[in-house]
C-alpha cells in the first residue's frame, strides 16, 4: 500500500521537476517595453489619445507610431515620465487631444436615469452597474473619470464631480520650495 503512495509521489516529483525546468527553458516573454510604458499611463481607458485604450497606445508608442504627448489624463507628469523612460525630449501636451483636468468621478442623477444601458456599453472599465429599465449607478472606486459615458446619455443625467478630499484619499502635500530665478544683470 505504502509503495503505491511512494511511486505516485516519486512520479509527481520527477514530472514536476521536468515541467519546472521546461517552464524556465521555454519561457515566453512579452515585450517588456510595452508593459513599462503601460505602467506609466493612467489606465483611464478614455481613448483621448486616439487609440482604443491605454495598452494599444503603449504599443503604438513602443512601435514609434504615436507621440508621447497625447495623453491628457496623464498630464505633464506623465509626459515627463515617458520622456525619461524612452530617452526622448519632453514635449508639451498636444492640445488636440484635450486638456488635463483635476481627477473626477462620474455621478448619475438617479431620479432622472431612464435605464437605457447606453452608458454601461460606453464604460471602458465596467464601473457602471444596472440593467435595462432599471436605474444605473456608478461604482465610484472603479470610475476613472474618462467622461465616455456623458455623450451617450440621452437624458443628460451624468455629471462629473471632482474627487472630494477625505481622510482616506488625502495625500501629504510635500512642501515645495521654488527655486529662485537667476538674476539677469
Amino acid at each position, binding site marked *: 500500500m505504502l509503495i503505491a503512495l511512494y*511511486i*505516485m509521489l516519486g*512520479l509527481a516529483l520527477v*514530472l514536476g521537476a521536468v*515541467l519546472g525546468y521546461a517552464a524556465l527553458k521555454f519561457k515566453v516573454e512579452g515585450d517588456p517595453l510595452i508593459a513599462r510604458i503601460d505602467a506609466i499611463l493612467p489606465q483611464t481607458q478614455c481613448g483621448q489619445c486616439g487609440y482604443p485604450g491605454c495598452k494599444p497606445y503603449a504599443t503604438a508608442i513602443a512601435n514609434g507610431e504615436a507621440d508621447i504627448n497625447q495623453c491628457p489624463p496623464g498630464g505633464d507628469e506623465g509626459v515627463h515620465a515617458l520622456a525619461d523612460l524612452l530617452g526622448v525630449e519632453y514635449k508639451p501636451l498636444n492640445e488636440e487631444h484635450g486638456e488635463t483636468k483635476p481627477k473626477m468621478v462620474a455621478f448619475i442623477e438617479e431620479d432622472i436615469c431612464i435605464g437605457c444601458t447606453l452608458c454601461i456599453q460606453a464604460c471602458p472599465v465596467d464601473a457602471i452597474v444596472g440593467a435595462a429599465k432599471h436605474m444605473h449607478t456608478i461604482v465610484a472606486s472603479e470610475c476613472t473619470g474618462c467622461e465616455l459615458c456623458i455623450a451617450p446619455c440621452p437624458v443628460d443625467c451624468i455629471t462629473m464631480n471632482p474627487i472630494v478630499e477625505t481622510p482616506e484619499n488625502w495625500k501629504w502635500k510635500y512642501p515645495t520650495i521654488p527655486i529662485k530665478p537667476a538674476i539677469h544683470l
Partner: protein
Amino acid sequence: MDLKSYFIILIGTVLVNNIVLVKILGLCPFMGVSKKLEASIGMAAATAFVLTIGSMTSWIIDHYLLQTYQLEYLRTLSFIVVIASVVQLTQMVMEKSFPILYQMLGIFLPLITSNCAVLGIPLLNAQTDNGFIESALFGLGGAAGFSIVLILFASIRERLEAADVPMPFKGSAIAMITAALMSLAFMGFAGLDKF
C-alpha cells in the same frame, strides 16, 4: 520480432484498427478541430507527438514501476499524470516555437489531456503486454491513423462548406453523417485478414 511484423503493426493500427473510425476513441478533437484544415494539421501534429511520447513513457512506467510492484491498478491514474505532463510540455514548446498555431488551437491544446485516444492507446498496450518497441509503434501508428483521419475529415468539411446541403443537415449534422460514412469505409479494411 522482425521488420515485417513491425510493418504489420503499423499498418494494422493506421488503417485496420483506426483509433478514431474503428475504435471510436478521440472523437472530441475529431469533431471540434476539423473545421479548418490548417488548424487540424496542427492538432494532428500535436496529438501525434503526445500519443507517441505518451505511449512510450507509459510503457516505461508500467513495466519498470507498476508491474515490478504488482500495482497494475494504478495504471489509469499514473498514465493520466504522465499524459498531462507531456501535454503541458508540448504546450510550452509550442507557445515558444509556433505562437500562431498555439493561438489557433486555443483550448483544444490543453484538452489533448482529456483526449481518450491518448489514454486509450497506453491502456491497450498494457492490456496486450506489448514490448517497448511494439508499444512505441502502436502509439506511432495510432497517432498516424488519427492524423490521417483528422486531416481527411477537415478537408471534406472545408468542401462541405461550399456544398448545397439541405437546411436541416447543415453544420454538425452533416459532419456526423460524413464521419459515419468515413467510419463505414474504414471498416472495409477489416477484410485485410493478414492484420
